């Protein structure tokens, strides 16, 4: 059964489209990874789902939570759902918590709002929640202010807030990006366990493909405000079909597995996300894509192949292995292996 269904979601800032036609489904208890560079519209998508877009931003389309359209729901109804049925973990634990209120009071905010918890019960619930996210000495931690906690501890508090009411859908917006590398793994591990215990559906926004492959059932790649590829995470990350996903996989693999290319450079996707958010018409990736063909000036149609969907006029052929497995692919100047080689890599031109 589908817990969250996003259908044709657009986010516009005073008419300029920042997210266009984003669609994906998250089944009950399913885990979906949302990947892509900064500026690809992942966080905006999450905020639009929560109905918490900032000034000047407007969302159109459909966001169905158990069949109920959140974009058409009145604010009062959204307040009933937020924190209770759908919750969000934010990227910056340093600023996500109120600096002038004690951690214990903040962590039970949703419980008090939705379950009408009284003072004493709330205090007990706060300690329990902090215990569940493995904060040291929860009773004492509850009386601390956010600035008295470390970054990782603050993120645990933010996570405890999000799961306090056992939401159906949990959105996690790069929950580890702001943390030390040593803490990241622990926080992801905890997130994994909490989602498991609660059986809630998870939308995990991240740069970290290793995390996606370990924790997510399916993956959705975004670029330039569009979904460019989606499918089961093992299949997509193993053999990406969209040149952009392929580029992400290649760069990630080089960093974690293979190290620098024989030329001594880390592979990277040529070019960069346009700073002003003005992507080319048609396929937003075409000006950075090595597989671009004339037709890419048209908006690519979705190609379906079983559970996999790719929006590309000239996708990497099915069956091609992930570029990481083929060091030869790192040197596009050489004649490639039989068949079109993996693409989307190579140093900056």
């Amino acid at each position, binding site marked *: 059964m589908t817990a969250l269904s996003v259908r044709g979601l657009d986010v516009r800032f005073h008419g300029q489209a920042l997210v266009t036609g984003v669609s994906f489904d998250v089944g009950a208890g399913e885990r979906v990874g949302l990947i892509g560079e900064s500026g690809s519209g992942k966080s905006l998508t999450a905020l639009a789902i929560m109905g918490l877009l900032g000034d000047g931003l407007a969302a159109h389309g459909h966001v169905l939570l158990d069949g109920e359209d959140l974009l058409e729901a009145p604010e009062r109804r959204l307040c009933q759902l937020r924190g209770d049925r759908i*919750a969000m973990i934010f990227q910056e634990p340093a600023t996500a918590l109120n600096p002038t209120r004690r951690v214990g009071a903040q962590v039970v905010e949703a419980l008090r709002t939705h379950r009408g918890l009284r003072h004493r019960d709330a205090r007990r619930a706060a300690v329990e929640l902090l215990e569940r996210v493995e904060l040291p000495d929860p009773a004492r931690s509850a009386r601390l202010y956010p600035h008295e906690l470390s970054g990782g501890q603050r993120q645990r508090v933010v996570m405890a807030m999000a799961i306090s009411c056992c939401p159906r859908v949990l959105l996690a917006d790069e929950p580890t990006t702001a943390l030390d590398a040593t803490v990241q793994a622990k926080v992801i591990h905890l997130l994994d366990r909490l989602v498991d215990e609660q059986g809630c559906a998870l939308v995990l926004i991240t740069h970290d493909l290793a995390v996606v492959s370990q924790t997510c059932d399916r993956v959705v790649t975004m670029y330039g405000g569009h979904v460019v590829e989606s499918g089961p995470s093992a299949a997509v990350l193993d053999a990406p079909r969209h040149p952009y996903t392929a580029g992400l996989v290649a760069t990630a693999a080089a960093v974690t597995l293979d190290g620098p290319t024989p030329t001594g450079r880390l592979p990277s996707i040529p070019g960069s996300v346009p700073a002003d958010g003005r992507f080319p018409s048609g396929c937003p990736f075409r000006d950075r894509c090595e597989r671009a063909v004339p037709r890419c000036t048209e908006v690519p149609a979705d190609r379906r192949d079983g559970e996999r969907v790719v929006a590309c006029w000239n996708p990497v052929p099915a069956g091609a292995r992930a570029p990481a497995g083929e060091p030869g692919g790192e040197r596009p100047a050489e004649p490639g292996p039989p068949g079109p080689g993996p693409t989307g890599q190579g140093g900056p031109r």
Partner: protein
Amino acid sequence: MTSYLLRRLGTVLVTLVGASIVVFSVLNVLPGSPAAVILGQQATPRAVRQLTAQLGLDKPLWRQYLDWAAGLLHGRLGVSYVSHVAIGQEIGQALSVTGPLVGLAMLVGLAIALPVGVGGALRHGRPSGSLLGAVGQVGMAVPTVVGGLLLIVAFALRTHLFPSGGFPGWSDPLQALRSLVLPAVTLGVVEGAILSRYVRASVLEQLRSDYLRTARAQGLRMGQALRRHGLRNAAIPLVTVLGLELASLVVGAIVVENVFDLPGIGTLLLDAVDNRDLLTVQDIAMLVAATVLVLNAAVDISYRLIDPRTRGRS
């Protein structure tokens, strides 16, 4: 906290000593002798010398300073050269007018600034929000004197709701308060306009803060989130402004007391300057300096109470 309070108190004392030296020096480099002014143009040089000696103004400056400072420490503010009344008593009486006036004005200011500022922030980007902003601008642009005169015309001369000036004394508290209403509103409207801009900016910053978004992600309505999370944080910068504005209200009171003919500190100061009553001027200047310093210290201390991040730091 105790050591912090002691340190802060030490700073206030040191600054007060500095302020007293500055005040004393500035007033004593002014040309002209108070004795000559008191005795008038027909006075003989001998009489002037005698009076100067009698007032202690023939002693070396450092000696005069020490005498004055020691007097202040003992609560002896001296006797006016002109009215021969104890200055402490005069200032006390004037304060009983200016103190309530400034307090009332601040209340009026806050009563205007809080709803206008918060409302403006909540309606940011909408026409009604811009209108509230414009109201604030107009309020600031009207000079105190003009505003005061307009109020006198409307509420004293036309409708006789409030007296147009004068002060009956606190023996009749109701009448005393009535005579303070128009001056307090005059001062307070301008104050409210100024403060409302700070309130608006501060609340707007809270509305855009990440933790307010977190609070809303827990299911709190905008108003709830703002009440529970925003207002306390919004108050942090406002406390500074309030401290500074309270000091500037004391200055503004000088003008308003003149317009409404109130026997407050402002009137006392202007009269003292007119009459070259240097000692009174000196004492009032010290009083104002001490008030500002104490207000600033109060601001710093209230930070600690409002913002836990500043506790435990020096």
